[in-house]
């Protein structure tokens, strides 16, 4: 299961390209790009982070969670409370990640005993329960939300770099995990959990581990978010709509791949900004229709479409509804 022989030179090219990209993004605040664009990039970085994180659990390991907003919110609240308590902002963001990871273990311990769709439904329940509890907990502000005590001058660049940092971290982690034995184990769990167990993988432990990793990244994104907006509210960060957005991005972009979640997040960000300004009343329609079309025609999302087009240019035909799913099943060799 090793990479293709040509990978050594292309790996170096890959690192070079990645480094260049990083440099480009680092330079953004300094070259006079308008504030509005920087704000949008910051938002995109946060979505990229949650997208990559969710993909680790949902795309690579096949455990679809409808309740990831829980970790975003936990991270945001933990970081927010820490900052209000005088903690250094970056430590607070890390604390957010840690609290989210801890939360994921508490949630994962009971729920990972459930298989696929039942796990998914359970996560909806957990999401809503957490939201309602947080709406009523006085120490965190309850339904009034949590306000960050303002300190110092506002520097948009600082927030931008924090967002870039978290996104880069998420990308790095995803990259490493997918190319590691751990990633292999995760994919085995996705294909056939029982067979994987027979081969010596510990599905429960692996699921808990990747869940914690994904939750940590998402929580850190939440920490960057709370620092930026200085005010969070349970109906915002713990909303079911937030969970929906988090899962939409990797699905649209292409589950299981590295570029898919990034594409999905970027597309979502741009589209969302334009839609909110010009067509606020159609965004649900857009995402719902996208989901339906993707499930019927191209479960591989935009990344899968790209691949299909690339193959198509070499002479294969595309099919009708259901062909997407059926083709996918063929590729994977079907179930047992």
């Amino acid at each position: 299961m090793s990479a293709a022989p040509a990978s050594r030179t292309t790996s170096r090219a890959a690192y070079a390209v990645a480094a260049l990209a990083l440099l480009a993004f680092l330079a953004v605040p300094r070259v006079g790009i308008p504030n509005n664009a920087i704000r949008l990039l910051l938002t995109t970085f946060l979505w990229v982070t949650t997208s990559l994180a969710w993909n680790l659990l949902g795309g690579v390991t096949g455990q679809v969670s409808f309740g990831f907003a829980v970790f975003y919110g936990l991270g945001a609240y933990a970081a927010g409370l820490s900052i209000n308590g005088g903690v250094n902002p970056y430590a607070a963001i890390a604390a957010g990640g840690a609290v989210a990871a801890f939360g994921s273990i508490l949630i994962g311990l009971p729920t990972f005993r459930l298989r696929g769709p039942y796990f998914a439904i359970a996560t909806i329940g957990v999401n809503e329960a957490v939201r309602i509890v947080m709406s009523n907990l006085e120490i965190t502000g309850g339904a009034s939300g949590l306000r960050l005590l303002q300190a110092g001058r506002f520097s948009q660049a600082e927030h931008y770099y924090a967002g870039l940092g978290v996104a880069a971290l998420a990308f790095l982690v995803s990259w490493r995990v997918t190319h590691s034995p751990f990633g292999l184990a995760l994919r085995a769990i996705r294909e056939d959990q029982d067979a994987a167990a027979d081969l010596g993988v510990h599905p429960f432990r692996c699921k808990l581990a990747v869940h914690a990793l994904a939750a940590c990244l998402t929580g850190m994104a939440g920490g960057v978010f709370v620092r930026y907006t200085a005010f969070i509210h349970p109906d915002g960060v713990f909303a079911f709509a937030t969970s929906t957005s988090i899962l939409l991005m990797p699905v649209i972009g292409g589950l299981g791949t590295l570029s898919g979640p990034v594409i999905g997040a970027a597309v979502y960000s741009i589209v969302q900004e334009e839609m909110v300004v010009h067509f606020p009343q159609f965004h649900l329609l857009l995402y719902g229709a996208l989901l339906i079309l993707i499930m019927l025609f191209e479960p591989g999302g935009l990344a899968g479409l790209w691949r299909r087009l690339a193959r198509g240019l070499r002479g294969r035909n595309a099919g009708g509804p259901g062909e997407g799913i059926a083709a996918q099943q063929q590729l994977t060799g079907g179930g047992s």
Partner: protein
Amino acid sequence: MKNTGIGVHGGSRRPAARPAIVCIVVLALTLLGPWGSGIEAAQGAGCPDAIRIGLVFPMTGREGRPGTYQVEGIRLAMELINAKGGVYVKECGKRLPFKEILYDDQSDQGRSVQLVERTMSSDNVVAVIGAYSSSLGQAQSVVPDRYQVPWISPGAGASTIYSQGRKWIFGVLSPVELLGYTTMKFLGSLVDQGKLDKGLKIAIAVENTDHGKEYVEGVNRWIKENPTAFKVVFNESFQLGGTDFSGILQRMKAANADIFLSDAHLQDYIAMHRQYTQMGLRHRMVSYGARGTEEPARKALGPAADYIFAGIWWHKNLPYPQVKAFVQEHKKKYQREPDSYYPSTAYDSVRILAAAIESAGSLERTAVRNGLRKARLTDSLLPGQTLQFQENGQAMTPFVIVQNKPGDKVDFVYPEDSRTGEVVTRIPR
């Protein structure tokens, strides 16, 4: 047969160059996207041909109806001012009309903040008017100090927004705490007049937001000053936006109170009172905070809404000439009378902004902000007819208490000098 789920393979074997390239291309697109739409000429020398005002309100979503009413009030004010040529700006030596740039935040806090940031950073606005409801106001109020653009809210009344040392925010809505206090003051005056016995029991059920909490604070402040007048036997909060209130109503029933005080948003008020009536609950006097007289509620609840009293920021029957004129203009433009206070505070925010710009003599943001600090509207639509902002940015106009009467009528019952009818202290069966 096992579930194969979704999942695409091959990502692990591909050289990482492709994902990296894709990432760059896509993120570059992100840059170009907003670049194209976001760049406006910087606010520089020379006078623009209009006074651009950003408006960020919920036009759809949970708060869509009040939000729309507020925007209607703003538009009416701008239209009337523009009809006279606009606002006189000394620096430009002429009158300039208002121009609105409207965004719908769909009652979503995240979007609300996103849009305020967008308009403050790239729409070249002189000021932003925004936020119906205190939670949207809380979220938006973080932004003005960052971009140093004046912000006025005609719909956010929670005082915590204005107690954080911010320098660029202004609120036209009087604090909810004062609403709670005034309500109790009114009830106390009834005890003094002998219309209510001393020591009656009060049940309080408020929404679990800042709005509800501050209402209770106001109530408690009065009770602390007058400990023997009433006794609070029930005090709980409920989730905003729920549809089923039977739980809290059941618990309240067991408390056997004489007076029921609540503080709720319009929809919750309607749903709650419907269930209240269906469960056969009864109290001598009932209030839902600032709610009670709204037309949709009276239509939905019918006779069940009679005799409910409310402490309101404004009512269309206030006996001032400027209110009559406003109601007439509103009817002319929108073919209906203003419902509840929503359009009135929005209308006055535009007027006080115009006054501030005129006194500042310029469109420069800091000058406008300083103008707002000193501005004073002496023909305000609001009770007391004077609108000006306190030190912390929030206005503090007095409340009037009104009571619903049968036949879709409303009476002013407090303060004494604005009374138009007798208060009913025991709701008839």
